[in-house]
């Protein structure tokens, strides 16, 4: 009851705070915080929508710069957007990998959220955080509890995460139960059943179960780019499983459905050739492998395709065509060895970061390498793509790219600070020329009255019995305290700006200098981090490149040996022919 009283007082005090802000709005600080016509909720909605614009552009850093600010003029009462902003900040923090930041906001929400939907979304994000931290049991508990009352998009994602968590705990039946709740128009279903199929392949070694799961996964895909991409991966996986089962007919059926222009195409072409070969259709298999030749040799299976073509012709006893095919393979491997050497030199001289920057596609953020429209037929791009498909490289490489992006942002910030300094210096110069200081007294009674009302609230709060109501009231008082502190700072700032303009600009200049120093310090720290990470990742990349080089060298030697053998065979057979001819001549002469 008393808590309700406190809330009532808070509601009454709140407009006073805003009026106070309004009194000084002419000279105070933040734009968002100062319009008398906007209620706290309207201000938070505007902030939410502005942050949403950056969020949907994958600018998570910028989203967090705007949100989780001092929420001056905002509170938890009758304000739907205050907590929505917190939730948006949690999502942005999770996407930036700032798990501690997300945890901190979620703790705050745990105390303050009273709306049912916000409470469930808070629990959902706690589940997502546990999921990201690979705390499967906690994640299952939180997501199970939250998911029933979530909006559809979050509910589907929650079901997906739950299914993964169950699979990680080796509970495929539970996972399947959750997946069954996913509607057919949700791509999360395709991903979930794909994971189930992989689980059956790896843990149960049950190919038939895996194929059934993949067939179900395919029914969830749609005609969007993402839907077609995942469908390709499903068909590729199913094709591979069928080949392992020697069921070539089934395999070719799956592989025929893989898009020719998708990222799964090279692997699918190679496997399709194998399936055709298994069906005894050697010529068609060879024709299929010819289609793989346009892809880079870094792409798994492509180097094999060159040898398979030559070997296929050999088996068909088309020796001269086979010789041509082996010669082509040798020249391609030779070229690849040369390009591998060039890539290695590039890595040694400039590092992986420079290479990543070279292939980065504009406007696609740091996760450009997940883009499906990447042309994968140049050695550099194919190599980067191959490298990024490895988990132990992917995570630090993404961090490296993020650091690089932050450093570039900070450098831009330094330029902005320079411009700011120049403006302030000009203003300081002008302020010093013949301006008389303004004599002005600022009435502080409104502020003092607010502070005394706040103290009364605290007295009532002290008498509250311990419990959730008291915790809630404490949060509201803390929120009011923050606002009062800011208000006081503004009083001081306004007084200072009106009475001592020169002093004001001087202090602004000092502040700019201080921030500039911090910017420079952070740039140096990022330089060091980037250098260390780049060196370590470049070493890993060079190791990978060395593996590829050795593989190409093996193919090169094998092709040469095959060619030599083929020439040998031809020579022997020519010799045999000539011996046979000689024998016939001798025989003819003798008779």
């Amino acid at each position, binding site marked *: 009851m008393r808590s309700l009283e406190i809330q009532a007082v808070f509601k009454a005090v709140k407009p006073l705070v805003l009026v106070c802000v*309004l009194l000084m*709005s*002419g*000279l*105070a*600080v*933040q*734009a968002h915080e*100062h*319009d*008398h016509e*906007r209620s706290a909720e*309207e201000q938070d909605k*505007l902030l939410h*929508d*502005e942050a*949403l*614009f*950056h*969020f*949907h*552009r*994958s600018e998570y*850093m*910028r989203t*967090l*710069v705007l949100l989780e600010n001092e929420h001056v003029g905002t509170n938890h009462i009758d304000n739907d957007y205050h907590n929505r902003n917190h939730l948006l900040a949690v999502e942005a923090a999770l996407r*930036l*990998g*700032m*798990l*501690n*930041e997300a945890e901190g906001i979620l703790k705050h929400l745990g105390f303050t959220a009273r709306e049912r939907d916000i409470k469930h979304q808070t629990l959902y994000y706690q589940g997502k955080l546990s999921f990201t931290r690979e705390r499967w049991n906690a994640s299952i508990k939180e997501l199970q509890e939250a998911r029933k009352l979530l909006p559809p998009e979050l509910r589907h994602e929650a079901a997906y995460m739950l299914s993964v968590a169950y699979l990680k705990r080796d509970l495929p039946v539970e996972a399947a139960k959750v997946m069954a709740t996913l509607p057919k128009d949700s791509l999360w279903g395709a991903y979930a059943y794909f994971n189930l199929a992989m689980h059956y392949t790896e843990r149960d070694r049950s190919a038939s179960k895996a194929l059934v799961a993949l067939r179900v996964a395919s029914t969830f895909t749609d005609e969007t780019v993402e839907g077609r991409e995942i469908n390709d991966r499903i068909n590729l996986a199913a094709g591979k499983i069928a080949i392992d089962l020697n069921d070539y007919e089934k395999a070719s059926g799956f592989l025929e459905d893989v898009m020719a222009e998708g990222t799964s195409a090279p692997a699918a072409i190679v496997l399709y050739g194998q399936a055709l070969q298994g069906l005894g259709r050697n010529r068609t298999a060879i024709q299929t492998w010819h289609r793989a030749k346009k892809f880079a040799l870094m792409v798994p299976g492509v180097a094999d395709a060159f040898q398979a073509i030559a070997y296929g012709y050999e088996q068909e006893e088309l020796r001269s065509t086979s010789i041509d095919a082996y010669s082509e393979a040798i020249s391609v491997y030779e070229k690849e060895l040369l390009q591998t050497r060039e890539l290695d030199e590039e890595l040694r001289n400039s590092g992986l970061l420079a290479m990543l920057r070279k292939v980065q596609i504009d*406007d696609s953020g740091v996760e450009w390498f997940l883009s499906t429209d990447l042309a994968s037929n140049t050695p550099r791009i194919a190599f980067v793509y191959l490298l990024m498909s490895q988990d*132990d490289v992917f*995570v*630090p490489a993404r*961090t490296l790219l*993020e*650091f690089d992006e*932050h450093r570039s*942002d*900070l450098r831009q*910030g330094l330029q*902005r*600070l320079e411009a*700011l300094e120049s*403006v*302030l210096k000009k203003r300081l110069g002008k302020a010093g020329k013949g301006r008389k200081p303004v004599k002005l007294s600022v009435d502080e009674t409104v502020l003092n009255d607010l502070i005394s009302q706040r103290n009364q609230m605290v007295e009532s709060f002290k008498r509250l019995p311990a419990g959730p109501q008291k915790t809630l009231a404490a949060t509201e008082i803390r929120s009011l305290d923050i606002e009062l502190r800011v208000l006081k700072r503004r009083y001081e700032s306004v007084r200072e700006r009106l009475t001592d303009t020169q002093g004001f600009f001087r202090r*602004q200049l000092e*502040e*700019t200098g201080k*921030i500039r120093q*911090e*910017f420079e310090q*952070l740039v140096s*720290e*990022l330089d060091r*981090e980037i250098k260390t*990470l780049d060196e370590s990742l470049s070493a890993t990349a060079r190791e990978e490149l060395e593996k590829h080089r050795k593989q190409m060298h093996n193919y090169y030697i094998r092709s040469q040996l095959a060619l030599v053998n083929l020439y040998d065979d031809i020579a022997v057979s020519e010799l045999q022919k000539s011996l046979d001819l000689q024998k016939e001549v001798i025989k003819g002469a003798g008779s």
Partner: protein
Amino acid sequence: MFQRAVVLLVCGLFSVSVLAEADLAQRAETLKKRVIELNRDLLKLEEQTLTPVDTQVVVFLAVDNGVSFTLDSVELSLNEEIATRYLYSEQELGALDRGGIQRLYTGALPEGSHQLMAVFNGKVDNRYFRKAASLKFAKTSGARYLELRVKRNPANPRQPIFAIREI
């Protein structure tokens, strides 16, 4: 004995790699937090210095969901002088379509009467479309927020409404 030693070595290497990854994540989070804080400080300082609230004018841009108009660019004029021109990327249009609002312009104006004009360039059914909207407004002390909004026209979906209002 040897096998156990190998297992221990492998476990050791694994835990070292996991620890290294966790350490990197921790360092990355700390650095990101500082980048955010510094950017926030800079933003505040810029607002205080360049566009203090007594002179501040902010123009936002929003597009209603389901409008049959693909925004290409916007030209914004204040008192018949170009304030900004903005060309939209596909990603930005997606963000607007999903409820985001763009802070298109932040500037400073003295108190008094002013005029804002916005020219919207874009496409309707693959045909180029150009339309202007304007608003006269009075700037008093305190910040003035204005919103440009492309709205759906229920009477004629092929003729979207371009509105400017004070918020």
